């Protein structure tokens, strides 16, 4: 398969500003194939703006963005289509098309990129994707307005996964979910990564998610990515915000929960399925 440390997303010298307000100033970031990278940062540090710059919804003032080794800026629409086929995106509010049913939402990218698929196969794909993301089997013909917040997120991820992408962008996937739903969602992402070899770019504030599923965490502060690494690596850094973030009462609770779980897991001691 692909090389060990292949870089899927490469951001170099990214600068963004809205009028007077400078959001990013010379931001660098690399995401490796097959990893789950968590992105954290205080409110308003430009996490979503960074994601939007990477996926081409926000034109940066300066800098370079490469996805799958291909430059994203100043490209033709037709060239970008080839890249868009290979990623899936879950927006913060799920961004389901409100006039389409859940099943139709899942089928939109399939129809758009692969118009030759038969209706029967499209329906079958929508059906198993709906089950895979943990929606109830009768959710297919429902409209987004009829779903709860958590169900909408799941439907959103079903749509993001419609093309079996290599790269998944998730913007606060567990925000607004109850702890059970959030834990199930974390598990879903891990499962998908193992099953499909996904690379996941994950913006989150959920410390449990960071501890349980992220391989590395990128910290956004002072208009830059100030540190990237595993949580122990980050904890070793002497940065006020990082310490406060992970060492605060919530951070400690998540850490303890994770340690307890790790112990339980070693007790079970079943072989890893990592490739």
């Amino acid at each position, binding site marked *: 398969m692909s090389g060990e440390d292949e870089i899927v997303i490469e951001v170099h010298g990214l600068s963004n500003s809205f009028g007077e307000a400078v959001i990013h100033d010379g931001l660098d970031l690399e995401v490796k194939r097959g990893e789950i990278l968590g992105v954290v940062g205080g409110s308003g540090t430009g996490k979503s703006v960074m994601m939007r710059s990477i996926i081409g919804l926000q034109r940066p003032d300066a800098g370079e963005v490469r996805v799958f080794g291909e430059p994203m800026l100043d490209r033709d629409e037709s060239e970008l289509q080839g890249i868009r086929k290979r990623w899936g995106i879950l927006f913060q509010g799920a961004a389901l098309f409100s006039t389409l049913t859940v099943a139709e939402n899942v089928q939109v990218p399939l129809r758009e990129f692969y118009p030759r698929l038969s209706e*029967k196969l499209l329906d079958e*794909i*929508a059906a198993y994707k709906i*089950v*895979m993301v943990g929606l109830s089997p009768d959710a297919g013909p429902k*409209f987004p307005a009829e779903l709860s917040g958590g169900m909408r997120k799941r439907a959103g991820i079903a749509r993001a996964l419609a093309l*079996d992408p290599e790269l998944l962008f998730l913007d606060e996937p567990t925000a607004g979910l109850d702890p059970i739903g959030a834990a199930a969602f974390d598990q879903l992402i891990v499962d998908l990564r193992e099953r499909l070899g996904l690379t996941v770019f994950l913006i989150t504030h959920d410390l449990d998610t960071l501890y349980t599923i992220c391989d590395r965490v990128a910290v956004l502060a002072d208009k830059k990515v100030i540190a990237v690494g595993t949580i122990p690596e980050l904890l070793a850094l002497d940065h006020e915000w990082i310490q406060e973030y992970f060492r605060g009462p919530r951070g400690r609770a998540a850490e303890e929960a994770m340690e307890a779980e790790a112990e339980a897991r070693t007790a079970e001691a079943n072989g890893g399925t990592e490739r």
Partner: protein
Amino acid sequence: MNAAMSSVARFTDTQEEGRRVLRFQGDLTLPRLGVLPNRLDRLKGRDFLIDLSGVGRMDTIGAWLVHRTARERGGEIVGADPSLTTLLQQVEKADQPVKVRPDPPAPFQRVLDQLGSATVEAGRTFVGLLGFFGAMLISIGFVFRHPRRFRINAVVQRFEVVGVHAFGIIGLMSFLVGIVIAQQGAVQLRQFGAEVFTVNLIGRSSIKELGVLMTAIMVAGRSGSSFAAQLGSMKLAEEVDAMRTIGVSPMEALVLPRIFATVLMMPLLGFYAAIVAIIGGGIFCWISLDIPPVTFVQRMREVVPRTDLWQLLIKAPVFGLIISLAGCFQGMQVKSDAEEVGLRTTTAVVQAIFLVIVLDAFFAVFFTEIGWL
């Protein structure tokens, strides 16, 4: 297995040792599937041996195709390496009866169903509109007793949006309508040598009917629709709920200012429209019929009774009330999604224009009865 890397998905269908063998090769991934699904659909026969040993990469869609073939045709899958096996298991686990499309009701039932829901809906809208009118009256009563609650700033702001901003378009429209009436009237009246009566036609129809009616239609399109869309979006964003919990009555803060502004602006706009229509007609008379402006104005004062103006000034606020009421009512009915905002906006405009025209007919009969010919 690496030999088959990055190649198009394909399969061979052979007979080996008394069994049909489907041998898949290449990458069973969505971009590389090509015509494979169609070929699989056309396959005849049962009890295949499905050999995956030649498969490079596979995604869930490829796994689904293999799984489906095995399930529907009673096949047996061999030669899958561990990662393919996990994928197949995952897909198998996800293979459950799922409803993808809503049940289509029987055609006859559907007609009855739609007819029934439309009737119920119409009744509900009527009752709802009446209820809304009542709530508005109560709210007005409350504001009357507590004048400080009256949001004068909001009303003035609406004056600008509903009234001042509409001046340009309503002026242009009325001017053109005036010219058209004058021109059409002159052509017909010329046959009787009664061209001079064009002035009567312009003056009376503009002031009595067209000025206010065209204004009402324009205001319904401009302001009624925007009321519905604004309030609808605010309801979707839970702004209206937030207001309620803070103790601000949406009726007072959102609906009343809009209704007041429209009711007050309509007579002004209607009068303005009538005057501009008369100016348009006058200019046409001057240019084509050689009726000089002085004569035109003099004649206008002779033939247009004051009651025509009263009719305009009575009808306009009522139309304004209907337009703003329909707009606000429809906006406040929005519950589910963005599509509903659009539908409600359309309904608000259609309802407003329809009600305005129906009421206009009533007014015409009424004014004739009381002798305001």
